[in-house]
């Protein structure tokens, strides 16, 4: 996944980046994890929006540490998605970030055993073969 040279691995499904979400993706190019936040009321928005869903105020992307906990997780065994078939079994965690929003990401270095809901994790950005933007992944940290 972090080695962009393997030509035999098909490209992953491409995220359709839009004007609301581009700040998230631009930040990943620069190695930053950033979430959308209302600049008026401070609400963190998991899905980026042009205006805040709570107060309709303007929003901007703010850097976050990328720390959170495992809200839930799955162990992917089916090679259903061609780009990820060579990785199975691998773990996708749904991480609740310290700021509140949840984001999914691969739990690096895990094959299922020993992972628990509530485990603390640290986000990190990994390279994707076919694009300049990076993928948000997570790694378990000692609790």
């Amino acid at each position, binding site marked *: 996944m972090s080695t962009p040279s393997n030509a035999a691995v098909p490209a992953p*499904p491409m995220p359709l980046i839009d004007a609301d979400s581009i700040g998230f993706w631009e930040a990943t190019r620069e190695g930053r994890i950033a979430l959308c936040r209302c600049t008026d009321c401070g609400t963190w928005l998991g*899905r980026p929006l042009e205006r805040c869903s709570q107060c309709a105020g303007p929003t901007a992307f703010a850097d976050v540490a990328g720390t959170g906990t495992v*809200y*839930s997780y*799955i162990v992917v065994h089916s090679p259903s*998605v061609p780009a990820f078939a060579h990785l199975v079994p691998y773990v*996708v965690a749904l991480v609740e970030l310290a700021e509140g929003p*949840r984001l*999914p990401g691969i739990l690096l270095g895990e094959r299922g055993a020993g992972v628990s809901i509530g485990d603390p994790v640290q986000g990190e950005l990994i390279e*994707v073969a076919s694009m300049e933007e990076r993928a948000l992944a997570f790694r378990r940290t000692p609790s």
Partner: protein
Amino acid sequence: MRREAVVVGIGRTAFSKASGRTPLAMAAEAARAALDDAGMPATEVDGVIDFHTSDSAAATDVGRAIGAVDLGLAMDVTGGGNVAVTVVGQALAAVQAGACDTVVVFRSLNGRSGNRYGKGDRPAVQMRGDLQFAALHGYVIPSMWIAMFAQRQKHVFGLTDEDFGHIAITTRKHATANPHAMQRTPLDMETYLSSRWINEPFRLYDCCLETDGAVALIVTTRERAGHLRQTPIRVAGFGEAHTNGGSWTAFPDMSQMYSAYAAKRLWNSTDLRPSDIDVACMYDCFTATTMATVGDFGLCPRGETGTFFAEGKATYGGEVVVNPHGGLLSEGYLHGLNHHYEAVLQLRGQAGERQVRGAEHALVTAGAGPSGGALIYEVAP
């Protein structure tokens, strides 16, 4: 006086793994079968409504294919099983509002030989909105999204693998009495537990059967129904919930589903109670969907669905027969419209070997995760 709308006809094609036919051809066959069942000519159809994920035939095309060329309602609802109750509700509303008189409601898809929901390379699914944050982890297919709910259910309620197994086993047992079911081989716990992982905590038998086929219903006025062949069936309760923008990741408590919200609307819309339900056709794309929704709709306490099944309360002689046709898990993944077919059949007393005796009220649910709905059918007095 307000017009009342009722269901007067049901129809379907053969279910298979490779139909070799277009969704249009199958939709037309199912619509004609439903009209024959009702005893109505196709010339009376002036409304068509369906749902699709860019894998079906358009309402206007199906109308033309059966010779109904002047439609007062032609609606293609974009959505999965979460709108399998919506389309019936909209057909009823259109007839009751006087927008049209007779509506074909259909779902048609080559879910196995064509656009497979279990595959990650479906061209129709674009990684926009929330999905853009899932794409780069391959987190893009339903057996992953619902497995995430299942893991949370296990954590919150302390569920065992066997709890999920009991749902798969009972559902399969029901399918053995249904000649139309795709899978009729009995399933035991050992076979369930030793089946391969799909996406843990889901094994093979936790997942429904991708299927080719079509199902159709006919909705018309109560007045017209009095001159038709079948006992008319009406809707006695209705409630949908589409929460948190339909997000697979933002649902507040993933040990529950949309049903926690839809249940309030459903039970507020009727004097009926969960104990009045004789047949429950629960949308079961995965065992975990049954697990959450049976509890959320109040058929048993939350978190106890596995025990409810294990103790025989979800089958003949128990409290409510859940999915007598075998559900999506064993009859086939007709995206939930087959649940309406079964409910109508049971209330008419036409279900043959699998008839639930004295069935008066049938719950039909649709959807999983953040979005879906439910209705209660009964014989129209």
